[in-house]
């Protein structure tokens, strides 16, 4: 309470002497609350013991920030009491895991407290937060950004990472330090501003310190990683590449091998109005990088290894999402976007959008380091891998075609076909399960009743011999812009090999939106599945009950 008085006193003092402190300042923020009330639903395998007394899950946060010219500060409060089903139990807790103050000018920027940062594509450093997944690996420390000349940016960071609610103390996890520099030649060199080729170079280094208290192995206490990147653009072409290397870093993820790690991500694209093509290649080899070598879950990642396949938006198309295999993978992706012009036979009055996307990810080839040591043996150099060799073992393949067509002011539709190969044993860790080979088709039709009222119908089918078998899904949505929505949906697992599991997962939703506030209520069943956003996935267990979501920004 004494603190409160001292703040009141200080502010009154500021108020008398510096009107600016109050009048020129801005306070902004946002709140969100996601709640679920669960009830037993024996048909889909939920009984009182699965709920285990936790009838209510509540995840909530509030952000508030204060800005005065170049100075800003903010806090985020979070409460997971208890966390919604599917979130890590370690998430349970409440408090202020995120607070910061910062000063930003054109030349220098300083942030103290918690912050998010990304070097290049994130191959050696990325801290970020994804509320819907309960993922947050923010750094708690200091960040410095200097722009010594136009087009040159130097960043330095150090800190410890967030691990749910566990306080950083006594070296209970590692410390992260990083440096990044980027130069945009066209902005820096006089006379190059409007050159036909734009060139950007970047380089970064990250070092992790964690004490070695392993009784068996002599582990590196300082693990460093380096990355270099380049972006070239010339007219309609763009080429971007980044290479990263990490010294030996035995960890729970790589089975404590002493091999170095590396990652490459490259893309080449061509685009002009109406047409876009991109080809992307990736190779990852032993590149998991965490600030605690003992952690093997979705936490304390220092780097980010992006899965480059398409992230699907429709529920059945998104049922089998890929997740990067940090121990090794080689992947490619191709996408073509084309707009058949207005007025042509196929384009019609409004033009027709076509998107073709293909991605495939295979394992890397691992050869033994000598005749007597099996591949990936603990405490050894692990294996040798030829950079250009691709294993026959396919993790994932997705070929999808989407057509987007507006017929008239009243009618429009999206049609999508997808062919999928999904190595469920590797990706979801279900050892021994057969890879899922599936065909998925869907249509999404919108009918505008009037300017503000519209109906939307989604029909989807997923056909496979493996896993849970065939699914069909239907959803009808009625919206009154810009305020109301109502939906009725059902997912029916009619092809489940076990007849007693051929369940309907129905749900009713309604929502109200006013400006930046949104309230949504859903009653029904949620099928078991995986939600992935930005490369991190969360298993969502089957549930039944009422869900409420409240969100506002100001």
């Amino acid at each position: 309470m004494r603190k409160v008085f001292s703040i009141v006193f200080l502010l009154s003092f500021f108020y008398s002497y510096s009107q600016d402190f109050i009048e020129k300042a801005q306070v902004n923020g946002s709140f969100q609350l996601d709640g679920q009330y669960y009830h037993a639903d024996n048909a889909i395998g939920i009984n009182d013991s699965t709920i285990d007394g936790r009838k209510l899950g509540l995840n909530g946060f509030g952000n508030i920030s204060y800005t005065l010219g170049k100075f800003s500060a903010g806090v985020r409060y979070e409460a997971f009491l208890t966390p919604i089903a599917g979130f890590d139990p370690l998430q349970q807790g409440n408090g202020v895991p995120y607070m910061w103050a910062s000063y930003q000018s054109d030349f220098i920027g300083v942030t103290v407290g918690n912050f998010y940062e990304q070097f290049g594509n994130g191959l050696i450093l990325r801290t970020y937060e994804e509320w819907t997944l309960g993922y947050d690996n923010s750094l708690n420390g200091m960040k410095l950004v200097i722009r010594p000349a136009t087009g040159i940016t130097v960043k330095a960071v150090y800190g410890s990472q967030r691990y749910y609610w566990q306080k950083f103390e006594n070296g209970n996890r590692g410390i992260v330090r990083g440096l990044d520099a980027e130069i945009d030649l066209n902005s820096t060199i006089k006379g190059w501003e409007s050159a036909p080729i734009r060139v950007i170079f970047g380089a970064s280094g990250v070092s992790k310190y964690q004490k070695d208290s392993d009784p068996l192995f002599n582990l590196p206490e300082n693990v460093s990683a380096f990355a270099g990147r380049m972006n070239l653009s010339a007219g309609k072409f763009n080429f971007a590449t980044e290479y990263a290397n990490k010294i030996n870093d035995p960890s729970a993820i790589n089975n404590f091998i002493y091999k170095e790690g590396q990652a490459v991500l490259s893309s080449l694209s061509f685009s002009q109005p109406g047409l876009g093509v991109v080809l992307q290649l990736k190779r990852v080899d032993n590149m998991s990088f965490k600030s605690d070598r003992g952690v093997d879950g979705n936490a304390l990642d220092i780097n980010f290894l992006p899965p480059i396949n398409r992230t699907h938006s429709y529920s059945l198309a998104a049922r089998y999402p890929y997740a990067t295999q940090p121990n090794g993978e080689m992947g490619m992706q191709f996408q073509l976007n084309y707009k058949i012009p207005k007025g042509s036979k196929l384009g019609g009055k409004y033009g027709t959008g076509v998107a073709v996307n293909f991605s495939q990810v295979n394992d890397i080839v691992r050869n033994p380091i000598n005749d007597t040591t099996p591949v990936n043996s603990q405490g050894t150099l692990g294996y040798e891998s030829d950079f250009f060799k691709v294993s026959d073992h396919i993790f994932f393949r997705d070929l999808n075609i989407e057509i987007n067509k507006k017929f008239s002011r009243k009618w429009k539709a999206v049609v999508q076909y997808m062919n999928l190969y999904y190595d469920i044993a590797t990706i979801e860790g279900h050892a021994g399960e057969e890879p899922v080979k599936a065909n998925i088709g869907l249509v999404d039709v919108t009918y505008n009743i009037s300017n503000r009222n519209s109906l939307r119908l989604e029909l989807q089918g997923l056909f496979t011999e493996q896993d849970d078998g065939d699914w069909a899904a239907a959803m009808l949505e009625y919206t009154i812009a810009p305020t109301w929505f109502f939906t009725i949906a059902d997912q029916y697992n009619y092809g489940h090999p076990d007849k007693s599991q051929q369940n309907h997962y129905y749900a009713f939703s309604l929502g109200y939106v006013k400006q930046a506030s949104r309230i949504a209520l859903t009653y029904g069943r949620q099928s078991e599945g995986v939600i992935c956003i930005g490369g991190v996935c969360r298993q969502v267990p089957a549930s039944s009950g009422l869900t409420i979501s409240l969100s506002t920004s100001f």
Partner: protein
Amino acid sequence: MKAVLFSFFFVLLLLNPGLFAQTDIPQVVIKTLDGKQFNTAEIDNDGKAIILSFWALWCKPCQKELDAFNENYQDWHDETGVKIYAVSIDDSRSTARVMPMVNGKGWEFEVLLDPNGDFKRAMNVNMIPHTFLIDGDGKIVEQHTSYFEGAEYELYEKVKKISGIE
């Protein structure tokens, strides 16, 4: 510490209730489609209205909203001079696909990349699509989350209002 922070904001609010309204666009360095750094302070339209919309490749309603904007953009721009910025919050898994998709869709407005969500956080965007309407003085006058068919008409009425065209 918590008590200090919360009382700080509480007292600020008491002293000046008008402070709790987002007005200016925060200054954050993000990127253009060809990788160049872009300071959000440069979001500008010579004293005319601006629509700023957060979207991503994985967000269908976002693309429907931007398609609707694109269909009307020429008319809207001719009538009011309004400019549209679409900020993609795709991260490095999909940033490479943003430019081909924007061109493939034939979108004619400015598209920016916010791959680590810095601008999104500074603007307090929880869910996308989240669209802001900014007046000729660079002040945020309206914001809206979600997109339903036809919401663009109401938004455009507001654009006309702040542009002094009824």
